[in-house]
């Protein structure tokens, strides 16, 4: 399936710099509609207001982590199909397994580059 470069993407991270990096990388990849949130709670509220084509989320945030956001999204009938990529410095095996069990579509470990991000987005939409 060809990537829809107009699809709205929600970037969730508590570090503004990381949001800015991901935003710029996505822009370089051709995506034009990029929104952001500072933690899981804000992201979930935004997801209830708008249908995003992809969520790219950090794990370690307060008060709601990306892991909690993922589980909440997957339990929400209206949002459960939203593609979800975790981008995080949490690189223990148990984190990856927990994310997989919770229904993550892909998992990127920080630091990462544009090629990795592009590859994972393409993989998510190729499935």
């Amino acid at each position: 399936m060809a990537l829809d470069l107009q699809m709205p993407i929600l970037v969730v991270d508590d570090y503004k710099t990381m949001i800015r990096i991901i935003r710029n990388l996505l822009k370089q990849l051709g995506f034009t509609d990029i929104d952001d949130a500072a933690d899981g709670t804000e992201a979930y509220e935004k997801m209830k207001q708008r249908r995003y084509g992809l969520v790219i989320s950090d794990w370690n945030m307060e008060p709601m982590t990306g892991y909690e956001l993922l589980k909440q999204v997957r339990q929400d009938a209206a949002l459960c199909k939203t593609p979800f990529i975790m981008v995080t410095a949490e690189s223990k095996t148990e984190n990856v397994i927990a994310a997989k069990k919770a229904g993550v579509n892909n998992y990127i470990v920080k630091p990462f580059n544009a090629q990795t991000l592009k590859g994972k987005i393409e993989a998510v939409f190729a499935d």
Partner: protein
Amino acid sequence: MTKIDIQQLIDFLEESREKSSEVTLTDVMGLAEVMTGSMGDIIEHIQPAVTVELAEIGAEIARMKAEISKLRVADMRDNHIPDAGRELDAIVSSTEEATHSIMEAAEAIMAADPEDIQAYQDTVNNQVMEIFQACAFQDITGQRISKVVSTLNTIDERVSNFVERLRLEQEAHNEQGGEETDEERRKRELILHGPQHKGEGVSQDEIDAMLGDVQQDDIDKLFA
């Protein structure tokens, strides 16, 4: 107990009362020292062995007082730890500023119009210089980090010496199942380990393999 002993005890208590309403460990040890000293004459007549014990206790208390003073707790609390905190705040601030400058420059390059070759070249050159200048933060933060490490080493050395000289048993907090704090529980339940050091954790390739080839049954086996 002689009149002199009793007077010493009264003086000590009055002095402590004037200093502060809070009773510190040093106060308790000081009181014990005076008490053991003042009771020596009485007990000497009752049982000589007790006198020896009391003398040893008194000596031990005096030694503990000396060790506590070597720890220089006030110095650590008032100087070393606040200084380290200020250094770390400065590191956070300078890395943030540098990142901002670098990203500003990168975004300016991305937004530059390549149609006008001369203007484009000037923009790239100027912004690259900005990036080089911003990278100078690494030198300063390196020095700040060294100061923090030095502070931690000083505290570690003093506390380790204190524990060793007082022959205190190391508290095996985790092994003895110390009470879990709210912060520890949150980290455990939400699987928050933070960044791993080089060689620890799993690589992107390993993650890809886990997400791609490994089936749920394989994952479940890891927990069996």
